């Protein structure tokens, strides 16, 4: 009986060690920034969900478009109603891989450069993207960071002539994720 208990305990440890390969967050930050001579538009989403598997580099990110907060209430309404059509396409997603995850040393502090490649889905349209990013080990957590450009037209988001001067052709997206070990 005693042995069985030890066996179960050990089994528990095995599972826990395996689970340590995955890191997650439910409160990742996604920011986008559009800058034109007429005006700057910025929005922040503080509810991005992410799971990263450091074993194989698989990573997934998902967020609700309606969670983007704008300075101006009307901009937020137009973002959801006219551009993202958030009722039809509630989420923006990324599913891919940190292609050079093998290079990342989880025992080393400091930011380490990585490349992330995968499918980015915005407004119901998916494109393969490859973007640079960093992973920083910090007190058992992983801080993931990336900045990349997105062209709304590529994702079927029309910008009418009337506001063309106000919205940048390319929009800068910044992702900051503080990933904790996933315990199952």
């Amino acid at each position: 009986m005693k042995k069985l208990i030890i066996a179960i305990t050990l089994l528990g440890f095995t599972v826990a060690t395996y689970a340590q390969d995955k890191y997650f967050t439910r409160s990742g930050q996604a920011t986008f920034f559009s800058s034109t001579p007429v005006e700057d538009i910025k929005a922040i989403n503080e509810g991005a969900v992410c799971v990263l598997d450091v074993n194989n580099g698989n990573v997934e990110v998902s967020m609700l478009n309606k969670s983007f907060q704008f300075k101006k209430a009307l901009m937020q309404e137009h973002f959801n109603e006219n551009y993202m059509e958030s009722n039809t396409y509630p989420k923006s997603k990324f599913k891919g891989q940190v292609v050079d995850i093998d290079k990342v040393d989880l025992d080393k502090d400091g930011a380490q450069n990585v490349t992330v490649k995968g499918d980015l889905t915005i407004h119901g349209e998916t494109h393969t993207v490859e973007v640079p990013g960093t992973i920083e080990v910090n007190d058992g957590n992983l801080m993931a960071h990336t900045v990349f450009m997105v062209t709304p037209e590529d994702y079927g988001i029309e910008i009418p002539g009337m506001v063309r001067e106000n919205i940048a052709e390319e929009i800068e997206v910044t992702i900051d994720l503080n990933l904790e070990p996933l315990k199952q």
Partner: protein
Amino acid sequence: MKQKSWLIVGWITILLSGASITSVSGQEDGDSMLDLLGEEEPVTNYATAAFKSTRIINSHSLENTGHGVLDVRISHRFGMLNTGYYEIFGLDQAMIRLGLDYGLTDWLMVGVGRSTYEKTYDGFVKAKILRQSSGAKTMPVTLAVLSTMSINTLKWANPERENFASSRYAYAFQAIVGRKFTEGLTLQLMPSMVHRNLVPTADDAHDIFALGVGGRVKISKRVAVNFEYYYGHPDQMPEGSTNSVSIGFDIETGGHVFQLHFTNSTHIIEKGFITENTGKWEDGGIHFGFNISRVFTIHQPKDKPDEL
């Protein structure tokens, strides 16, 4: 000895099964790793932008001005089309209301205005009591209540008699209940009550009840067709008054909403267009008009991220 060997077999089995379970869950082809985080918390999805503006044409819509947002409104009605060429079909005349609306919170807005007609000042409070939503919380309709007061500041018609300031006041109360049925279709009902402190004759009712109906049909992302109609029972309506019928377009351009419309109402406030309407559509008693709304964010709600 035999017992010991069984134990070893058991150990290996347990360890292997443990390993195989984790390796299976580690593959996850096709499925989302995000499922590991468990069921998503259901979110409440509130219906937004049931109308492009806080007014349909003359009436208040289901929408409120956002928290901290100032809406500067210019409502303009030309004269009636049946005034003929001499008045260039009404374009020579103008009735306007200048208004300022402000969102104290996302559900409570206040506004003031000044109308040409009877040199009227008005103020209102509008509160959203229920918000249409789906998801974690389900609510089929949006319900708002509107309370308005207006003061006519014309010179006294009979300065010789004893006049009371209270004679200038009128009130209008509305419940606005409606639903955004689809992205393109919104309908609302507006049971209304108007109280006038002073009425022209002893036969006129002080309190008038009417039922309004309004809606919008979106014809593109930035253009919508709006309509509204009020029915007041002839027995209680003032002599010669007509029911208000209006139809128009909303055109949205960034921070502005332009509303262009045809209406048989000269007044732009509830007390007027519900009870003191005289235009008849069949006789060309129609005004061409427009509303312009321009919003300014003047206060940043604290619940927004600091970095914004």
